[in-house]
């Protein structure tokens, strides 16, 4: 059961991060190439609907599985009791309701005006996660956790959307965007990514310091080995991520725009696969005992 819960939780977290990161990309990064916010949202409307629908299904499965684990039964009245009388149940229902609201907004083509509602989604994770269980300084824990999750979303969701953007760029007519559109968007994304990885570091460090860290369990337990795996993947991802600013962006020339887009897209794809693995590992970590 823990394995399934780990995978589903990692997937739920990853998809929600992608959705929020994609919306932030459309609202704040893609405009670097001169595109309007509404045209960005309209272009990706189908993807937004598919992604939100998938998140709805995954969140629902996650909710049911956790309720079953809590209740230790598939009895509907006990599951109803989990949904209606527990903290996890209340936040879970709010999250599912929120996903339905986002889906409706996407279907009625109003995402460019109301995309910011998605910013509430990480709050649902914070409120139903570890940060809410500890007694002292709950508000600070929740704020740190929320900032951490939003920063993760900007990075990972931004990567996913940048990949789509670059693929579209490679197949678009040369005059639809400025000749230097790719370097403009990649440069702005790099700034966002650097700021968000810094935030991930600062908030992660702050949370670790607030609760203390047990280094001894890193090599002696399955849990610790997963943390080391996550650590290794994180280092590798950062190394791959540094290829863009240190190699590709420096080599950019107006006549090699498409080659630049192709090279960056390849690096971003590798980075995205690694980040996805980190999410799955993170999902397991939240279900395992140290």
């Amino acid at each position, binding site marked *: 059961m823990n394995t399934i819960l780990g995978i589903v939780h990692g997937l739920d977290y990853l998809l929600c991060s992608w959705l929020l990161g994609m919306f932030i990309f459309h609202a704040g990064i893609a405009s670097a190439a001169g595109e309007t916010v509404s045209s960005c949202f309209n272009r990706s409307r189908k993807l937004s609907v598919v992604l939100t629908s998938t998140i709805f299904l995954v969140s629902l499965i996650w909710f049911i599985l*956790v309720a079953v*684990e*809590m*209740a230790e039964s598939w009895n509907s009245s006990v599951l109803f*009791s*989990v949904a209606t*009388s*527990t*903290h*996890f149940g209340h936040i879970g229902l709010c999250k599912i309701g929120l996903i339905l609201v986002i889906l409706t907004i996407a279907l009625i083509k109003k995402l460019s005006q109301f995309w910011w509602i998605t910013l509430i989604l990480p709050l649902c994770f914070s409120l*139903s*996660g*570890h*940060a*809410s*269980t*500890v*007694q002292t300084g709950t508000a600070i824990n929740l704020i740190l956790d929320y900032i951490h999750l939003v920063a993760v979303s900007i990075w990972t969701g931004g990567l996913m959307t940048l990949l789509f953007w670059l693929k579209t760029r490679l197949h678009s007519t040369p005059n639809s965007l400025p000749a230097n559109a790719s370097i403009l968007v990649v440069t702005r994304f790099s700034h966002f990514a650097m700021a968000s990885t810094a935030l*991930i*570091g600062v908030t*992660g*460090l702050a*949370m*670790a*310091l607030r*609760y*203390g*860290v*047990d*280094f001894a*369990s*890193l090599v002696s337990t399955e*849990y*610790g080995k997963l*943390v080391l795996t*996550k*650590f290794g993947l*994180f*280092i590798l991802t950062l190394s791959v991520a540094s290829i863009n600013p240190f190699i590709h962006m420096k080599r950019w020339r107006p006549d090699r725009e498409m080659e630049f887009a192709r090279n960056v897209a390849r690096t971003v794809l590798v980075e995205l696969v690694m980040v996805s693995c980190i999410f799955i590992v*993170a999902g397991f*970590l*939240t279900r*395992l*005992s*140290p």
Partner: protein
Amino acid sequence: MNFKFVFLMLTLCPAITLAHIDLVTASPGKDEVVVKPIQTIRLKLSGKVEPKFSKIEVIEVASKNRMDSGEIVIDEKQDALSISLKGPLKAGKYHVKWKATSIDAHKAHGEYDFTFAPKE
């Protein structure tokens, strides 16, 4: 271990310590010899818990009889569970089994013994 390594480890490690609730203190505690009569068993946990999905059982080792009332009471801070006993305990050894579900849906459980040896 240099600073950069420690920074990265700390960055990636919050989940280690945030992951699960655990028992902080128990009254009576593990292997404690209680000399005065008690009416309740109280467990203090490291996080907030869901009372509906948490339980404490107090079993008299000699007779295997359940000695608790079955009704969990939670304190205001939501991190301590207590259960009242059915009646006065007889001298002897008692086994406490507990299970707690934190508000983020994680579970913790444990068991321990204590002895009731009233002073004549």
